[in-house]
């Protein structure tokens, strides 16, 4: 099998690039060692906390937004919304304004696109709400969040309500995914409605709960509970594993596969560049296989997902092709003394040209058939900017456009 396109990495940018390619009739293969950022994220699409400064980012070529171009971001968001809507999981929002959503610690976070299951939590809305305290669930503390949230909504009083989750595992602690599997079942929700109904008689109609509303049928679950109980539920992202992130992963993977895309997760991928042409080898527990493709997209992410590694001796490496990464050789210069940053390492990454081709020290592309996208790219502190998913989508879009 000869593929038109080989994508390395199954995070948001790799999967999205795969979907776009498949939707344009290309034969694509995604190779990844493991899962990407979707499983540890919030399941929202952050473009920039200060959306108003987007123009500035998009005019500088040091920044991935500048390399992708403004049209790419816009088109990427549109196409992602189409894919999700077709899967019955609409994403809301646009580049005009961010949602202001509550976090599980009671802070506010700005995000551009959010799933239907979350948007009723927008703190700009004037109705009072209550947060659900699920007894025994460690990863969401309503009492902690609520006191911190109160000042951001000073026009009304917030509260906490205890809502039991029948049939949650008792032989071990429940993770968000355990509870999500329960919410996926209509018969379970019927039971839940009976348990919750009497508890909700005096509660505000807007109710926030941890992001556990189902993996495969989240929107259905929300609509079911909302209408049966006369309430408006909204989800708040919690500690990993991220249920809303897994939904995005599933939607993109399904869309990709339904259009003939192939995805292999598990092997370690290493690359080689000879005569300006990149090829890769996938090593699955010692069974090696070489792949060639007309085009290769490197979407292996930053440090967390292994796209970049920082070594004891002071070198930063790109892990598949050993592409050059400019970084200081003193470890102390990689991080800040302040835990929450900003940290210099956040901007380390692979340098690319306007074609998104990784470039060598001479400024020339290292291989003619290789492009890099997503969190691997140098030049943006995604955390401080609140730009992670926006960059992943826009650069993936641009890379496919350039094929």
């Amino acid at each position, binding site marked *: 099998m000869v593929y038109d396109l080989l994508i390395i990495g199954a995070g948001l940018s790799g999967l999205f690039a795969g979907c776009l390619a498949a939707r344009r009739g290309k034969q694509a293969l995604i190779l990844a060692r493991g899962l990407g950022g979707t499983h540890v994220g919030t399941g929202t699409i952050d473009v920039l906390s200060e959306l108003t400064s987007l123009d500035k980012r998009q005019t500088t070529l040091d920044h991935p937004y500048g390399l992708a171009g403004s049209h790419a971001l816009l088109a990427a968001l549109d196409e992602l919304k189409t894919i999700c809507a077709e899967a019955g999981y609409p994403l809301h929002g646009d580049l005009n304004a961010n949602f202001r959503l509550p976090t599980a*610690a*009671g802070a506010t976070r700005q995000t551009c696109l959010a799933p239907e299951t979350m948007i009723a939590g927008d703190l700009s809305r004037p109705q009072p709400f209550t947060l659900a305290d699920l007894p025994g669930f460690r990863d969401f503390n309503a009492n902690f969040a609520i006191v911190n949230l109160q000042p951001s909504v000073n026009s009304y009083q917030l509260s906490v309500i205890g809502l039991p989750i029948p049939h949650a595992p008792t032989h071990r602690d429940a993770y968000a995914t355990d509870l999500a599997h329960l919410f996926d079942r209509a018969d379970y929700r019927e039971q839940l409605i009976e348990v919750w109904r009497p508890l909700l008689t005096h509660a505000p109609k807007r109710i926030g709960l941890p992001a556990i509303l189902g993996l495969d049928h989240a929107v259905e679950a929300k609509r079911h509970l909302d209408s049966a109980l006369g309430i408006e539920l909204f989800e708040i992202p919690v500690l990993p594993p991220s249920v809303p992130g897994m939904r995005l992963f599933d939607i993109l993977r399904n869309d990709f596969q339904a259009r003939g895309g192939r995805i292999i997760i598990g092997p370690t991928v290493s690359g080689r560049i000879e005569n300006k042409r990149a090829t890769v080898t996938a090593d699955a527990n010692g069974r090696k296989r070489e792949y060639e493709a007309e085009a290769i997209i490197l979407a292996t992410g930053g440090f967390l997902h292994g796209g970049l*590694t920082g070594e004891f001796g002071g070198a930063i490496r790109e892990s598949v092709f050993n592409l050059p990464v400019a970084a200081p050789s003193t470890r102390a210069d*990689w991080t800040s003394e302040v835990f929450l940053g900003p*940290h210099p390492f956040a901007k380390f990454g692979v340098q690319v040209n306007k074609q998104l081709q990784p470039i060598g020290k001479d400024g020339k592309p290292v291989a003619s058939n290789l492009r890099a996208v997503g969190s691997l790219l140098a030049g943006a502190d995604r955390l401080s900017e*609140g730009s992670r998913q926006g960059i992943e989508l826009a650069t993936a879009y641009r890379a496919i456009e350039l094929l």
Partner: protein
Amino acid sequence: MKLSTEILILGGGATGLGAGWDAALRGFKTLVLEKGDLAHGTSGRYHGLLHSGGRYVIRDPQSASECAHENALLRKIMPSAIEDTGGYFAATPADPADYADQFAAACKTCHVPANEIPVTQALKREPLLNPNLSRVFEVQDAACDSFDALHLLAGAVKSAGGEVFLRHRVTEILKSGDRVVGVAGEALKTGEPFTIYADLILNCSGAWAGKVAEMAGCSVKVTPGKGVMIAMNSRLVNTVINRLKPPSDGDILVPVGTVSVIGTTDTAVPDPDKYAIEDWEVDLLMEEGEQLVPGFKEHRALRAWAGVRPLYDPGGADSRLMSRAHALLDHETRDGVPGLLSMVGGKFTTFRHMAQLLVDAACAKLNVERKCVTADTLIEPPGAKLHTLPNRLAALERPLDDPTTRPPDPVICECELVTRSQIESSLRESGSPILNDLRRDLRLGMGPCQAGFCAYRAAGIIREYFNDHSTTGPPDPLTNFQLLQFLQERWKGERPVMWGHSLRSLELDLHIYHNILGVQNLPTEREMEVYPTEKTS
């Protein structure tokens, strides 16, 4: 607050608590004052090795014999803080060949049990060790968890009738004429001043002993010797491994709990409260680790920290050459200041012995004759168990056949198996909303994820505990601050080892706290820092 007591002890490390325990057992009205939390000083940041004595046989034979003696004794009186790992002195190709014979002879003279064993036998027990070792001696080293040991000791002081006041900082020593009669200071929790009068004051403030003695107008030169250690994310060895060479940097690897700790370095620092961990120190320890365990640098380093040795300097010299032995200073004969004794220098391993000498001297000063009984008294309460994961797991396991009767007790820190009810009872006992105190009490946040998951969960529990589930009212800058401060404190120890997996883990933690939880946007009030933390890691 005004109080009086017979014996007042300044400093709640191993030496001070040991002295408090000994004095209380001898029937003195006893009070121990500590400016921080338990294990706040050097005793909470040492290497964790209950010395066999082997390390000192050549340079400091007296310390060697004392260690050997106390090591055997402590195993009997506080077994639940000690893991009998045993120890090796092992000669790597980088070590001087002639040292082994000197070592063997000196062990005999100092009565430090040491048996030469075949290298193959050592490698069978510790397969990761350098296969090119030339000689190996087996000694009686053990690992001693300082948090466990100090909590046991503080409990023992109390059950013997003494008292321990934490977060009470002494700022002044009160005199009547030349005689020391009491101290004044501040209770850091409430900001309230206190004055305490005593018949006799024992200065057990370790690396701070010089500062404390100065308050009484006495000059004691204690050179704080900074030592850096690195915790590796797994037990690379199950036996304490010492390099068979003269003491130097990075020559000991100690298995402690779920990790193994390589250490240490030794640099004199001007102030025991101000020091940083330098990259070169970390590099050096990692390189030395490589000599003992080939591939050491590929393993994940979890965190680095430093402690300051209380090295007593009778005058001049480089601090490594300064004696690690202890010195009892009688300020009456030495400086003409009655009412004050100081114990300086020494080791964790010999704390009981130092306490005994000190309280013997106190008895003489107070003109009473009371025998020391600590050598024959069990320190721990019945049922106390060494904090190992198997023991914690056993405590967690409940009959699963009847899930309805099983009280839900969520595991909050999965790395160290700390449950919600343990956190609540620690909060009840200490009354302290400080996450770092929970860490020292329960080991919360000490495992591989370095508090990535548990800090949020535990902060929520603190919030609920101290605010009685009230959901209205003003935001809670104190709990927010505790959370942020705890993350920052953990970060200080992680930052020196930020490469490889630690860097990945940092990105995950930032994902959680910056992105998912947005804690950088929470209201906190820096002024809320009522309990200063003065340590660097």
